[in-house]
């Protein structure tokens, strides 16, 4: 899985691409936590446009990052999930805590 961190005024965008599963999650957590630890902006956006596969491991990864971001007082958003991943996020109740925004 590739992760690109994009800095914009008042926000950080983490653009994820590829497959998010138990195998790739180790690296994904490391890279996201590095970006989160350094972040001094108000908004953090997970951009899922390039994610082609995700299972419940991704739910755990998102919830873990959400806790860190909340603790820093940041707002968390998610965008670009394809139809199938959107259903997974919905089933797990992710949208009740992380704001879904249009691209």
């Amino acid at each position, binding site marked *: 899985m590739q992760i690109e961190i994009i800095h914009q005024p008042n926000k950080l965008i983490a653009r994820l691409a590829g497959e998010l599963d138990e195998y790739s999650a180790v690296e994904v957590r490391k890279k996201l936590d590095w970006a989160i630890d350094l972040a001094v902006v108000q908004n953090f956006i997970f951009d899922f446009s390039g994610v082609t596969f995700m299972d419940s491991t991704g739910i*755990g990864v998102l*919830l873990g990052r959400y806790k860190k971001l909340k603790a820093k007082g940041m707002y968390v958003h998610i965008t670009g999930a394809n139809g*199938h991943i959107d259903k997974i996020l919905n089933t*797990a109740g992710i949208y009740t805590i992380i704001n879904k925004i249009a691209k």
Partner: protein
Amino acid sequence: MNKFCMQISALSSNEAFVRSTVSAFCAHLNPTLEQLEEIKTAVSEAFTNCVVHAYSRGEEQTIGVEVSLEKDRASIIIEDHGKGIEDVEKAMQPFFTTRPEQERSGMGFTLMNTFMDSVTVTSQVGNGTKVVMTKIIKEGD
């Protein structure tokens, strides 16, 4: 009936191979792309559970994967010979996990149930766990 089975090492690096192979085999039934995605996710959940929960770290073990295709359905069996599940009913509840410290979400069985038409789990402590899942794929669906 058209059938395929394999024994594969319980490694997380095998997850992508297993879910892609199973879904590629299921493509014989002409499912929709959405149905293939659903099968992939369910297989990934069951296989990952064997890797993560069934065996202790460093143990060299294998996981059995079996797929049978009939006219209108795919039956998938994912089986380990690991530590087993004490209370299957409890384990299948949404958000139940015995590994919260590893950021597991407890949504694995819930997603299997959401995406497959039936999910049956049999498990014996000390002997292993067998997950049998069926997906109905009707002609012209």
